[in-house]
């Protein structure tokens, strides 16, 4: 009898785990409800996302030093007539209108969310595309942007060409696309890991494995890689030789040309829709700045493409030549100094309007 109860419990538990890790709503609910401070709460290392991913919080050189830099609003007393639409990722989270010069309105559009816009033509409307280097090749060679920053007037969307990798594409019309979101989620394994094992009290087990890998094999686990000088952690996809987002994967000139064509299509579409100007701001991978040997020069090649119409915020050249740390040792993001200087580069453009 007991065996049967255990068996049925395991079936129900497994089904619930699969469902909860598949459903986006259930995952949102669960991650919101989990208390980070309780012993059963989720593990989130305060010293950086890469430390959290690799469980290497016992290695002092990766821990965040206390960053005393603070973001100061720019001194600006000029006319305010600009509306800034900033589509960005985690680099531009927590930015607000006071960080920019001359704004009357500021709209932050997190990537992969939608914004239906209607432009006030009496204002200067600037579209700023802030994007991490590792995302550029995949994101800017798809139609996604037209589904996310949407002209309410519904002007026809152009087609841009896919230029990266072998992505599954079905024979148009021959195999109908199935609606299977209820049953399948590409992140189900990460979600299962979160739901079944991401608890504070299990962390010593994960940390012991991380210690074994670090001390015996001189490497981090999973998706994190230790830099050549052993001082930084990098996201594996930014340093591998096979991922599209890597700083070291060879990129043929033909692909740079196609990306330039795509960027021009995006530029022309949004200019035609009423934007005064469209800017591209690529945030370099940590490895690009910290470990430049073997860099594929993706950012300078794209930014310096002669036919590129979109204006660029060239933070790569600035960070490369600056004699200052650009990023945290155990985090995939830039530090406050870098953020402040990036804002200064953006503001230098904004005051022109």
């Amino acid at each position, binding site marked *: 009898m007991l065996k049967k109860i255990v068996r049925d419990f395991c079936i129900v538990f*497994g089904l619930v785990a699969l469902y909860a890790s598949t459903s986006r709503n259930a995952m949102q609910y669960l991650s919101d409800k989990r208390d980070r401070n309780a012993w059963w709460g989720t593990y989130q290392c305060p010293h950086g996302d890469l430390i959290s991913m690799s469980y290497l919080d016992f290695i002092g050189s990766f821990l965040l030093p206390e960053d005393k830099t603070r973001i100061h609003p720019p001194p600006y007393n000029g006319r305010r007539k600009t509306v800034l639409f900033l589509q960005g990722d985690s680099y531009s989270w927590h930015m607000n209108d006071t960080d920019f010069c001359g704004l009357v309105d500021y709209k932050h559009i997190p990537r992969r969310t939608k914004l239906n816009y209607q432009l006030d033509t009496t204002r200067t409307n600037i579209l700023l595309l802030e994007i991490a280097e590792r995302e550029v090749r995949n994101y800017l060679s798809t139609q996604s942007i037209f589904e996310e920053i949407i002209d309410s007037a519904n002007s026809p969307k152009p087609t841009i060409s896919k230029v990266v990798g072998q*992505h599954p594409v079905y024979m148009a019309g021959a195999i*109908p696309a199935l609606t*299977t979101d209820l049953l399948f989620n590409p992140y*189900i394994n990460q979600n299962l890991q979160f739901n079944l094992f991401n608890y504070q009290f299990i962390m010593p087990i994960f940390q012991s494995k991380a210690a074994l890998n670090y001390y015996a*094999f001189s*490497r981090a686990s999973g998706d994190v890689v230790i830099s050549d000088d052993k001082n930084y952690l990098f996201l594996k996809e930014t340093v591998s030789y096979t991922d599209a987002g890597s700083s070291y994967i060879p990129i043929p000139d033909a692909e740079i040309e196609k990306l330039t064509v795509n960027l021009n299509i995006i530029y022309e579409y949004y200019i035609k829709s009423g934007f005064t100007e469209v800017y591209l701001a690529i945030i370099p991978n940590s490895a690009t700045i910290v470990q430049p040997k073997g860099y594929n020069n993706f950012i300078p090649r794209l930014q310096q493409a002669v036919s590129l119409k979109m204006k660029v915020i060239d933070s790569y050249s600035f960070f490369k030549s600056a004699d200052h740390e650009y990023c945290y040792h155990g985090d995939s993001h830039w530090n406050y100094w870098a953020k402040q200087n990036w804002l200064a580069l953006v503001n230098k453009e904004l005051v022109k309007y």
Partner: protein
Amino acid sequence: MVFNTLQFLVFFMVVTLWFFRLQNQRARAALLLIASCYFYMARIPEYILVLGGIIVVDYIAGIQIEKSEGSTRKFWFFLSLLVNIGTLATFKYYNFFIDNIQTTFHFFGRHVSFPALKMALPIGLSFHTFQAMSYTIEVYRKNQKAEHSFLNYALYVMFYPQLVAGPIERPQNILHQLRDYRPYNWDNVKAGLARMAWGFFKKVVVADRLAMAVDRTYLHTSESSSLSIFIGALFYSFQIYCDFSGYCDIAIGAAKVMNINLMENFDQPYWSKNVTTFWRKWHISLSGWFYDYLFNPLVLALRNNGKTAILIGLLFTFFISGFWHGAGWRFVVFGLLHGLALVFEYFTRKSRQKLFKGMPPTLSAITGISATFAFTMLAWVFFRAENMHNALEYLKALFAFRGGSHYVGMNRVELVFSFALIVITVGREKYKPSNLIINDTLFYTYMLTMFAICYYFGVFIENQFIYFQF
């Protein structure tokens, strides 16, 4: 769905427990079929429609072949073959063919252009089409009765443990097992779980660790020393073995838990004393398929030509076998190299026997095993490289005996550990081929130990099994 994921572990637990909860075989078959669909669709859901189409055609063809005679019987047989081979050709070989046609025309100064198909290959397509063809061929040859239950036939093709990378089963072995009620058997559960644990060990601890060095040497061939290139080639021989045989261990174990016996697919191939024996021990289900359905009929048809029939049969079979693995010339070269080795062994059998007769048995065994291993290791280079050019560059670097970077993507401790793992794996299979499960206490200890080893020494990167791509 990939075996070495959390999703699979949870899925396996639910399906197996539910399977034993049901007392009715039809209900069990329905559960397994639904589970297999979920398993297959976890990668690209749309391709279930392609697989479904093949199943429907072959199911109808099987029944029609059984009940008809003469030209109608032939029609259904060839229709089934056409659908299976046609699907395989479209998805797997179309782009390869048009590329080569275009290149040939270009060579002669003419320019032709065909539209390329931009689509991913359905996972395991080569495996389930071959398994489906095996069924219609056996029904056509009257060795197997047609399956009248659509549920059972669909499950024969889709049974999730062997759906995407085999073993390529014959209907005689598996259909009746799927039809009959399989009672719960604790010994089988233990044996199955232990086999799965061994498979996971081979995959996540050995194969995925060796992959780090292999990937590094293939990506950095130009700057690597010949020694590191050699380590890369050596490691790939064991990576592919542990990867594929590890997959088979998990598949066979998962079926065994449900009291279903799948055929063995490996029998310590690297202990083979010649290449002919190697192919009797490596990917046994595929070798057997080609032997029964291609080599034998071909040699029989050409039997009036004496030894030439064997020569043609071997070369053609291995040409097709290489091509089966992938749409690329490097796979063809891989197949032909093995075909030539078998031809060589066939025609020099007597002189080799004479030569080995004069040697002490241990020495002749060591010579045979080493020569066979060295040959297979070099042939794997064509299998692993991205293209023919890279394969030749790799071999050139190997035989250049040059210096360069000795770094193979792991530190010395891990390198020594990797060699130790190879010795442990090969040694364990050679000297303890059966599982270690004698009693419950030993079983639980074994499982806990394997779990701890797999967790602490496993390399958990999202590496799918090598043979899934075929």
